[in-house]
C-alpha cells in the first residue's frame, strides 16, 4: 500500500530553487532514510511531506489526501504525520507530560486522564518513565529528543518524519535516540528519516534516497547505496562522510 505519493515536487524560496522535481512513493511500513550533502534539499523535502513547506509545484498525497496548507482539513491530515526536529522543539513552558498530552487533548478531544495514561506508557517506551513531571529545560539533549518522539507518537500517527534527529546531540546521546527509532522501525512504523548516521541508515532502512542538487540522484537498498554506489556524486559524498 502506498502511504506517501510524491509527484513532480518543486520548491523554491524566492530566487533560490531548492527542490527540482522529486517523484517518490513510500509504502506503508517502509523505512526510508534520506542522505545527501547539506543544502541539497533533504530537509525541505521532508518538510514538504507534512506541508510545513508548501510545494511550489507538484503534489504530495498522504493516504491519497493532498497535503496543501490551504486545505480546510490540513490540521487533521497533519495529525497522522508525526515529526521530530533536529532542535527538539519541545514546548519549554509545559512539563514533559503536558508536552505529550496537549495535542491529544486539543485535537482528539481525549480527556486528560486517558491522555496521561497514554503519555506515561509512551514515556516508559522511550525509557523516561520517571521524567513525566520534569520541565524540558532540565533534560539532556538525548532525553529531550526521546520526549519529542513520544510527543509525536501520542497522536498515533501512521507516518513519522525525522529531520536530522541526532545532529544536535552530543555524541554519547546519539545511541539512545537511534535505539528508540530502531525499535519504532521494528514495530512496523512508516518512517522517513533525514540523517547523517550512515550506520543507522545501513542497518534500519529498507530504502535509501540520496538527494543532491534538489533531485533524487540515486536510490536503492542500503546494500546498493553503500555497497555499490553508481554515480560520482554519491561516491564522493560517501567517501567524504567516511573521512569525517
Amino acid at each position, binding site marked *: 500500500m502506498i502511504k506517501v505519493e510524491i509527484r513532480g515536487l518543486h520548491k523554491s524560496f524566492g530566487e533560490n530553487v531548492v527542490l527540482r522535481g522529486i517523484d517518490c512513493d513510500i509504502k506503508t511500513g517502509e523505512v526510508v532514510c534520506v542522505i545527501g550533502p547539506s543544502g541539497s534539499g533533504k530537509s525541505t523535502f521532508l518538510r514538504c511531506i507534512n506541508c510545513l513547506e508548501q510545494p511550489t509545484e507538484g503534489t504530495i498525497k498522504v493516504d491519497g489526501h493532498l497535503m496543501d496548507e490551504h486545505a480546510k482539513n490540513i490540521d487533521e491530515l497533519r495529525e497522522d504525520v508525526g515529526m521530530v*526536529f533536529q*532542535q527538539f*522543539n519541545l514546548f*519549554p513552558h509545559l512539563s514533559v507530560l503536558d508536552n505529550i498530552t496537549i495535542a491529544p487533548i*486539543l*485535537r482528539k478531544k481525549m480527556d486528560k486522564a486517558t491522555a496521561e495514561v497514554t503519555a506515561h506508557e509512551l514515556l516508559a517506551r522511550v525509557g523516561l518513565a520517571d521524567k513525566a513531571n520534569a520541565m524540558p529545560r532540565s533534560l539532556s539533549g538525548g532525553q529531550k529528543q526521546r520526549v519529542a518522539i513520544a510527543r509525536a507518537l501520542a497522536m498515533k500517527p501512521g507516518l513519522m*518524519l525525522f529531520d536530522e534527529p541526532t545532529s544536535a546531540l552530543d555524541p554519547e546521546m546519539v545511541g539512545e535516540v537511534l535505539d528508540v527509532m530502531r525499535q519504532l522501525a521494528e514495530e512496523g512504523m512508516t518512517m522517513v528519516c533525514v540523517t547523517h548516521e550512515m550506520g543507522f541508515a545501513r542497518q534500519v532502512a529498507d530504502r535509501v534516497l540520496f538527494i543532491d542538487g534538489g533531485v533524487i540522484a540515486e536510490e536503492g537498498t542500503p546494500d546498493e547505496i553503500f555497497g555499490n554506489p553508481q554515480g560520482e556524486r554519491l561516491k564522493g559524498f560517501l567517501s567524504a562522510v567516511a573521512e569525517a
Partner: protein
Amino acid sequence: MAAQHIVWMGAGERGVVPMSFLDLFLESLPLLVRGLTLTLELAAVSLAIAMVIGIVAALMGMSGVPVFRSINRAFVAVIRGTPLLVQGYFIYFGVTSVLDIRMSAFMAGVIALSLNAGGYMSEIFRGGIQAVDPGQREAARSLGLSASQTTWRIIIPQAIRICIPSVVNQWCITIKDTSIISVLGFAELTKMGQQIIARTYRSFELWIMVGVLYFVAIYLLTVLARIVERKVSLD
C-alpha cells in the same frame, strides 16, 4: 485653633507662624494618599484595557489580512506620533463637543491612557511573539494544532514571558503618565499636590512628598514584577 489648619497655613504674608514640616506632612499625607489611590485606580483600569488593546492590535499587526496590518500601523503611528496631553485634550474636549456627550475626567483619562499604552504594548507584544522560536510553531502545527491553538497555547505563553520586562516598563510609564491627565481636572496625586501647594505655598516639601509616593508605588510594583518574572522564568 484655626491657624493650625492647612487651609490657612504656610502663607507668611498672612502673618501667621509657618507650619512645621511635621504638621504639613501629617496634614498633607492623607490627601496625597487619596490622590495616589486615584492615580493607581486610573492606571490599573487603563492598563487592564491597554493589555487587551495591545494583544488585539499586535495580532492585527501580524495578521495575514492586509487591512488589519494597516489599521495597526496607523494606530501605532498616531499614538507614537502625538503627545499624550494632546490625546487627552482631544478626547475630553474635542470628541465630547463633536459628539455632544458628557464624559467624566476619569473616563476621558482611562480612554486616553488605555489607547496610548495599548499602542506601545502592541509593539511590545508583537516583538515578544516574533521572538518566540519559529520551531515552536512548526512543532505545534506538525502535531495537528490549528493556527489559533498554536498561537494561544504555545506562542502567547512564551511571548508573555519574553515581554514581562518591557510590559512592566510600560506600566511604570503609564502610572507616571496619569499625572498628565491631571490637566483634565482629575484629582489624582499630582493635582492633589498642586492644590495643597496653592493653599500652603510649600512647593519644595510637597513635590518631594508627591515624588516619593510615585517612587514607592512604582518601586513596589517593580519588585513584585521581578518576583513574578523569576517564578515564571523558563531558564
